[in-house]
């Protein structure tokens, strides 16, 4: 009868669980935030501010601009305060500005976009400014 060392079995199962955990964590991290751009980090007193964000969407394969793609923009203060989301319809010309109103200070504002799995969403930080 073939003998199996129980410790070898335990190590093997532990490796399997660790790999599963790592893959799950990596998958949820990378797919959760498809693309992001950090906003300016200067401190301002809490008040209504506005940002103008230019978003361009290009086809991954051809590199051609996609004129009528819908991009959801999620604005978050750091990672906790959900500031709201807006829908940006990129229509000709491709670079379309989006006005979003934030009700907090601008420190660490991040912009998340979705979907971006099939599109390249380019957000130029230089377009992110206090209005």
């Amino acid at each position, binding site marked *: 009868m073939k003998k199996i060392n*129980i410790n070898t079995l335990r190590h093997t199962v532990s490796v399997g669980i660790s790999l599963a955990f790592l893959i799950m964590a990596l998958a949820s991290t990378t797919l959760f935030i498809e693309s992001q751009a950090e906003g300016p980090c200067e401190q301002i007193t809490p008040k209504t501010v506005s940002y103008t964000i230019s978003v361009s969407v290009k086809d991954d394969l051809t590199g051609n601009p996609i004129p009528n793609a819908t991009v959801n923009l999620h604005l978050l203060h750091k990672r906790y305060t959900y500031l709201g989301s807006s829908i940006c319809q990129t229509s000709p010309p491709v670079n379309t500005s989006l006005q979003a109103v934030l009700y907090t200070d601008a420190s660490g504002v991040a912009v998340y976009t979705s979907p971006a799995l099939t599109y390249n969403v380019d957000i130029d930080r230089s377009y992110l400014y206090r209005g």
Partner: protein
Amino acid sequence: MKRYAVDNEALGGNINPVSSPEKKRQILALSISLLSFLLASSIYLFYRETSNILYQVFASTDVSNAIDSLRSITPPLPPWLIYSLPDGLWMLSFCILILTIWGFQRSREAIAWIIITLAIGGFLEFSQALNILPGHFDWSDLAIMLIAVLLPLCFTHKSSYR
């Protein structure tokens, strides 16, 4: 069915059949592990943005409407509960599984695996700080992960073999 003998000699001859209280403890540990995992997944499903992979998976099924309905009536939760607790719950689930495999014994091997679990969690978090992975580094995530690792260790006992 082919049966394999446990190498009892390699373990110092201290392997005894799993006793009933031990079995109950294993079942309890696995239940807590499963519950932690399900709770973390539920937070992702009902509270996080809809672009997360778990929501996307369910969105393609028949239950997507039910999930959307539940999302609209879920009570608001503090941000740390939405963004940091799932990391801790996943880590807790992972640690309990590892400790269950190693019989909840404080052996060198079990401690080594617990350090590996913590290293994986730390790597993922610090990768965000270094912009290797997308996301936001947060000390509270690390703190919750550390608690999640240390908590099950309190229920371990000294290894009976070397």
